[in-house]
């Protein structure tokens, strides 16, 4: 292995990237756009659910119930309707997610110690938001029911009755329950995979298509040197992206970073290396840019986005898909990222994941070199 030759290839590759401003912008601007989107614009948190109310009762009792919803940060009472039909229309149009209907006999039933009912209409199209909103609605109604019961019992039995069992909930790692806190760390995996999938897999395919590969082959360059040279160039780009992602995440979006920055860097480099080798392997196998790109997106980017636990929890996936995630390297890196950022854990807890990433990087590097050698010979 001649280091000088590998360095020459690296220099050539870097010059290619720097001289093609569009590629460079894509490599740096795209991650920035993603950071902006996921750190600022996008969130799964359920807050201020637009609610419309039809109060057919119009008594202090019904208003008391409505006041609970108004006081909650999870609901935003957007308006009062004159009929149930009007509420249904609003839900159809997407102006209301939640409709509350209090019938005319609400306070009468309560006065007679009967069971009163509040009807809840929920737009279930966005099942995630709906499920969470439903939980909140039930919690508010439950709290009010308990308050009513306690009040009645105090009156009738002349003594204060307290709830027999109470749940004390504490959230670890992400106490404000902000979806940004777990999405932005996982985003680093996705960003690094974009470099690996798009830039790298296109590079060798482009050389085949434009014919410069033959020119390279006629030089004394060895396959391993070529692979290493290209790797170094794209590694540098990936490194810049990683630093940018970490800085923006912590500095701008205030995502907590509780673990070791050093470990974060080390595992990031390991993951980047493996991903780049995979990209090079793909581009060596695919002759056309289009094919290389599609394969890259399919095997690197999409799994990193969908199957790594970045946004969609792996526990909720059906068993066969969960089995597939075991061979997705991004899954392990996202676990590491969340562990370092949110849980503040170290090598002890993350040993298995780190080992997998190391093994993956080694295997793919060998495969990429062999594939290049075969292609060349």
């Amino acid at each position: 292995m001649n280091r000088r030759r590998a360095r020459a290839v690296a220099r050539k590759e870097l010059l290619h990237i720097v001289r093609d401003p569009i590629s460079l912008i894509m490599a740096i601007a795209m991650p920035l756009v993603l950071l902006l989107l996921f750190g600022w614009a996008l969130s799964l948190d359920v807050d201020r659910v637009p609610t419309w109310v039809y109060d057919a009762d119009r008594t202090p009792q019904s208003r008391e119930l409505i006041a609970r919803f108004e006081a909650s940060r999870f609901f935003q009472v957007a308006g009062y309707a004159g009929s149930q039909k009007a509420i249904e229309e609003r839900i159809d149009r997407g102006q209301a997610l939640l409709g509350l209907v209090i019938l005319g006999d609400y306070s009468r039933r309560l006065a007679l110690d009967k069971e009163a009912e509040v009807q809840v209409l929920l737009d279930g199209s966005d099942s995630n938001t709906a499920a969470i909103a439903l939980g909140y609605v039930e919690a508010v109604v439950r709290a009010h029911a308990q308050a009513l019961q306690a009040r009645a019992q105090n009156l009738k039995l002349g003594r204060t009755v307290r709830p027999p069992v109470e749940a004390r909930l504490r959230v670890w790692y992400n106490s404000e329950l902000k979806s940004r806190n777990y999405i932005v760390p996982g985003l680093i995996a996705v960003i690094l995979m974009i470099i690996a999938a798009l830039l790298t897999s296109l590079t060798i395919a482009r050389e085949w298509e434009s014919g410069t590969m033959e020119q390279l082959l006629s030089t004394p360059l060895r396959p391993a040197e070529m692979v290493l040279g290209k790797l170094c160039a794209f590694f540098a780009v990936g490194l810049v992206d990683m630093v940018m992602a970490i800085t923006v995440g912590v500095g701008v979006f205030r995502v907590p970073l509780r673990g070791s920055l050093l470990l974060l860097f080390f595992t990031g480099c390991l993951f980047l290396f493996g991903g780049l080798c995979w990209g090079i392997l793909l581009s060596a196998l695919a002759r056309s840019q289009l094919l290389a790109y599609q394969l890259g997106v399919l095997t690197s980017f999409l799994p990193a986005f969908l199957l790594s636990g970045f946004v969609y929890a792996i526990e909720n996936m059906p068993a066969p898909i969960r089995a597939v995630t075991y061979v997705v390297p991004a899954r392990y890196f996202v676990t590491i990222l969340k562990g370092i950022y949110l849980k503040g854990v170290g090598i002890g807890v993350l040993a298995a994941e780190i080992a997998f990433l190391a093994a993956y990087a080694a295997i793919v590097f060998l495969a990429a070199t062999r594939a290049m050698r075969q292609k060349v010979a």
Partner: protein
Amino acid sequence: MWKRILEIVRKEFRQAFREPRMRVLLFGPPLIQLIVFGYAVNLDVERTEIAWMDQDHSPASRELLAEFTSSGHFQVVAAPAGEQDVRDVLDYGRAQAVVRVSPGFGRDIDADRTATVQVLLDGSNSNTASIVSGQAAGIVSGYAGRVLGDRQRAALVAATMNTGQPAAIRMPTLRARTRVWFNPDLRSRNFYVPGVVVNIITLVTLMLTAMAIVREKEIGTMEQLMVTPIQPLELMLGKMLPFGVVGMLDVALVTAGALLVFHIPFRGSGLMLIGAAMLFLLTTLGAGLFISTVCQTQQQAIMASFFFFVPAFMLSGFAFPIRNMPLLAQAISFIDPVRWFMEIVRGVFLKGIGIRVLWPQMLALLIIGTTVLSTSALRFHKRLD
């Protein structure tokens, strides 16, 4: 004129289908996305793994455990013994939550005091944590209600025996009767798969259109085309039409897959869907055309398509609700055609609404589409001369 356009269309189709790999690429990714988004992407919380730490070992604590396990929402996978165990369980991610019943739980209940149950939640996926906390709180509350009911009955019996008269103590209660519209089982699949229709049609038409034109530039056959009597307008139409057709075919394919394999409801009008798709195609084909005028190489075309597609998709309400976005982002999504098409598609699939409700969205698509297409066409025209 039409004859020349037809020739270009035929040439594109032949080029596309001659290469077997291209054939796969045209229809493979849509199907794969359908499978992935239909099965893998799932925000529904089915059965959560929890750890149970019972420090009381009383009949009451065992009853509470039974409530949790029989609810169908939870599965106990660990029984931590001490503080370090609890920390390990959550640190290593072995369970999503730890329920701790402190010593004296049963005694507190018997003595009419308030007994507490501690639930520690792993917040690293705050979405799941919100749902799980709601479920756990519901179960504890249900258990509390049952205990309260037992106590009241006991008090009733005692009162009756004391006074010899039946004492009827009824309490007012409040219940929520919930009706979930459009997606009663709250399956996230019903929410995502219609979005996949939008995803497919956007990707295919946008990227392939851009690449088809740029490839000719790159290889050099564009100059050859220019020497022929073909007019710029005819070239444009000839390049865009095939991918428009492919896009519509993909829509049909994915919709069929959604209905037959995933049993997604389709409550609206198919005609509405086709009409909206055609309006939407104005934008994507136009954008593909625009990208082809900006880029010189296929690699750039791919990157540019990606650069346009990803934010447009993220801000469209596909996975992340628009309502949650800051106002500036919501304003941006106003000019995002994907957002309007997404609303139409979801409305047609799940809500069964039609043009009466969706005309603003159709109008938005029309306005955005004609603007993008005419701008791109003008630019393409100029570039070619």
